[in-house]
């Protein structure tokens, strides 16, 4: 890869008293990408953002932007801007003055300020509201003002700290699309912090999954979802079912794994060896359910019983107890051609999955 990182963090550590919020973290953020820091609350993702913005001083390591070291540069001298979760609009200023604040601090002349502010208002689709006060706007509109106030400064990097979490579901989906549009339109780098994996998956170019101050995995949404590198990522991003198994033998490229006495063939991508204890991970939508009453099955499969049927509109979720003990979560899509396929509570079923759809670790 020839691209140079626009922001790079090397061995960044931040402590609050005895608590290590960020622990020797390394990451490169590239020009124009939409990078999401995803993790549970308290994992240090917001601290990373505040370190990049300059609101916190780091204890160890270094932060570079466009090649120069930023460690001791105060936030007002950094070419990044932040959109906060609480919006934090200036309550005593009109929308225009809110957005113009950054330009005024940089001593732009009046004509330039007028033009830039109007352009920013256009981008966030709030033209005409510039004379209002923040308290006169809805939450979604305030969110857009906060965006405009940041992007009007044309930062190299825009930092977004859970900007959508205060909005209701419909508005959030709308803003997700808006954010992507603004990102494409401006072509600047977005660093987005969220605990919502759906948000992360639908918007990001790359996701960094964080846990207790460290990055667990960095990758595209597809890589994170389909190829989680460890149990934390697998469990945090989406639902996952886990089966304990033992490798019986290795067949070039694939492995035979015994799960509850049944031998399943899995792909051997991680060089597992014979006799090893492994975990086989399956997403709910990757599992196939066979109803004992309707279909007979010859391939290896696990027998179980449907405990619960949850109708979701376009899908149906099944909670199935395997006879060997585990409870698993399965999502089935409705098949237009087989409208008579009905799942009932208490039904006997067998489950398995297509070869290669599993993750083994």
């Amino acid at each position: 890869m020839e691209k140079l990182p626009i922001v790079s963090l090397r061995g960044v550590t931040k402590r609050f008293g005895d608590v290590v919020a960020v622990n020797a973290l390394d990451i490169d953020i590239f020009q124009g990408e939409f990078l999401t820091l995803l993790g549970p609350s308290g994992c240090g993702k917001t601290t990373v953002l505040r370190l990049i913005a300059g609101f916190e001083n780091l204890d160890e390591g270094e932060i570079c932007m466009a090649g120069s070291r930023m460690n001791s540069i105060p936030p007002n001298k950094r070419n990044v801007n932040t959109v906060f979760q609480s919006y934090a609009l200036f309550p005593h200023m009109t929308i225009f003055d809110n957005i113009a604040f950054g330009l005024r601090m940089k001593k732009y002349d009046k004509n330039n300020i007028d033009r830039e502010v109007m352009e920013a208002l256009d981008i966030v689709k709030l033209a005409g509201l510039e004379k209002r006060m923040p308290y006169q706007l809805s939450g979604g509109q305030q969110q857009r003002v906060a965006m405009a106030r940041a992007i009007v400064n044309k930062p190299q990097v825009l930092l977004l700290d859970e900007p959508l979490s205060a909005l209701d579901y419909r508005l959030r989906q709308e803003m997700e699309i808006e954010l992507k549009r603004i990102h494409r339109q401006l072509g600047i780098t977005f660093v987005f912090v969220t605990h919502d994996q759906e948000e992360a998956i639908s918007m990001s170019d790359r996701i960094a999954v964080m846990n207790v101050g460290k990055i667990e995995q960095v990758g595209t949404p597809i890589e994170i979802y389909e190829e989680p590198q460890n149990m934390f990522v697998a469990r945090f991003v989406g639902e996952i079912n886990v089966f304990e198994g033992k490798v019986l033998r290795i067949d070039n490229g694939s492995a035979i794994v015994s799960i509850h006495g049944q031998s399943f063939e899995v792909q051997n991508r991680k060089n597992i060896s014979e006799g090893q204890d492994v975990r086989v991970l399956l997403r709910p939508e990757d599992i196939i359910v066979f109803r004992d009453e309707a279909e007979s099955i010859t391939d290896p499969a696990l027998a179980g019983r449907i405990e619960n049927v949850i109708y979701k509109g376009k899908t149906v979720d099944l909670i199935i107890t395997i006879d060997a003990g585990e409870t698993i979560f399965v999502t089935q899509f409705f098949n237009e051609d087989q409208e008579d396929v009905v799942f009932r509570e208490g039904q006997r079923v067998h489950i398995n999955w297509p070869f290669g759809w599993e993750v083994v670790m």
Partner: protein
Amino acid sequence: MRKSLRFIYLSFVYLFLYAPILVLVIYSFNNTKYSTNWQGFTFKWYNELFTDGPLMEAFFNSLIIAFSASIVATILGTLAAVAFYRYKFWGRQVMYSFIYMLMMSPDIVMGISLLMFFVMIGLKTGAFTLLLAHITFCLPFVVVTVYARISGFDRNVIDVAKDLGANELQMFLHIMMPMLMPAIVAGWLLSFTLSLDDVIVSFFTTGPAFEILPLKIYSMVRLGIKPEINALSAVMFLLSLVTVTVAHFITKEETNR
């Protein structure tokens, strides 16, 4: 039925509160020196009031002290409140509770302790010591008023201002000051009225050469209430009415936000 009961009840409460003041205002127009009987309408006492040199001097002295003390207390108190909010320093909590303690401590204790302090450092009591004393007892009220507002702020607003390129001074002038303004005005008004009618602390901390209105009135009424005092009280009541109205409109504008 319940509505009219409520009305009667409220009328009694307000009668109880305002009747004495009303009587005082009426008597300030009574054309007699000693009698409490109505002897006809006159502006005589107002005329006498405004031509009474020593009384007017005490009144102006009071205004000067009240203005200067409240302004100094407002500036110091606002800065103190900002410091309590903005910076985490050792002993911050303890210091803030000491501010509260000062507000609760009896005036007589404060008056005597200040007098002792001035005597100890060899400061002659007079206008200057009086000013220092008034600043001292006004200060906590400003700190508490401003701090109450500042602690309701979204802290991120400060970070945003920095993020958008403001330095500490610009942040204070463009963001904090305008947002704090209603509390600063309220703190100032409070200080001004506290200073204007203080008797106890002033009694200990002023000297014989510098007379202020509350002390002057106090010494005058010991010889009996002159109608002139009624007139003065009426004027002061009118002044405070105006002040309260102004304060009300300033805070009302704010709560609309």
